[in-house]
């Protein structure tokens, strides 16, 4: 890398695999993950001028999470289906026909995908990215106590879905 701040090409080449994995765990499918990464890379390009050298993966995970949450908010403004009030009801009792269930990882991914977005985001940032509660709170602009609650409730829902 040249100097302290990398070029976006270096970011994409070095961290693209990480970025895509986070996007996939948030979005739940390859097409949406690809779109998230494309938008995230555009924001990376715009933001590199002001990037403060530090945890590149932490910075990237914040960007892709914000892209994801922007998309969630956009869909909520134009909802395509009514969401049930009780998050427990979002967990399917049996996998859908279009869901791969040929292994433990697929079952976990399916359960993760069916978490409410706010729980999924907290769990992914904690258990996939490895951010601290404070870093997650900063990334998604909520109090640390809310992060803790969302992570715990998300894990409980996951466990219920996987049993």
């Amino acid at each position, binding site marked *: 890398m040249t100097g302290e701040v990398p070029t976006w090409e270096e970011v994409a080449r070095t961290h693209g*695999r*990480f970025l895509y994995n986070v996007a996939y765990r948030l979005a739940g499918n390859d097409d949406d993950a690809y779109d998230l990464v494309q938008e995230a890379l555009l924001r990376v390009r715009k933001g590199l001028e002001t990037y403060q050298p530090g945890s590149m993966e932490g910075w990237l995970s914040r960007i892709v999470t914000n892209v994801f949450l922007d998309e969630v908010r956009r869909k909520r403004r134009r909802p395509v289906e009514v969401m049930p009030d009780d998050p427990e009801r979002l967990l399917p009792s049996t996998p859908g026909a279009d869901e791969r269930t040929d292994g433990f990882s697929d079952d976990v991914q399916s359960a993760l995908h069916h978490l409410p977005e706010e729980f999924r985001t907290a769990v992914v940032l904690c258990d996939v990215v490895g951010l601290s*509660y404070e870093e997650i709170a900063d990334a998604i602009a909520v109090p640390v106590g809310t992060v803790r*609650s969302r992570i*715990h409730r998300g894990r409980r829902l996951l*466990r219920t879905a996987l049993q």
Partner: protein
Amino acid sequence: MIPRDPGADHLDDVLSAYLDDELAPAARHEAEAHLAACAGCRAELDEVSAARRAIRILPVHAARRPLVGTESGGLPGTPGVPRPPSRRRAVWALAAAVAAAIAFLLPRDPEVAPSLPSLADSHAARASITGDPLTQLAPIAVPVRFGP
């Protein structure tokens, strides 16, 4: 999951903070003291620990297509580098193409559009030659004979 005494204070989301090493030393000691005495919270700790482990051992999911343009090496959407169509953009592009096709096919000037009576007359003329003798409707397809 083991039912817990609903009247007692339990650890709840402190359990996840405990697993993630997010508790201050004093809070950690309190949590451990509670866990030593509460079977319900120990059971819940096992549950959330299993879920936490399941996520953490997920393999890295690799992209199935290049994330950036390989020919030019440029970022999609940057000047001089066309951005590949996302699904949403592709849908809009398709909708625009359909709208353009409909606009092209529709008569632009009502005066030059073929009139409905003339079409009906033409259809009736064909029906009188090739159509059903009872309904006077033209056949919609030429019958095809299969086999010898």
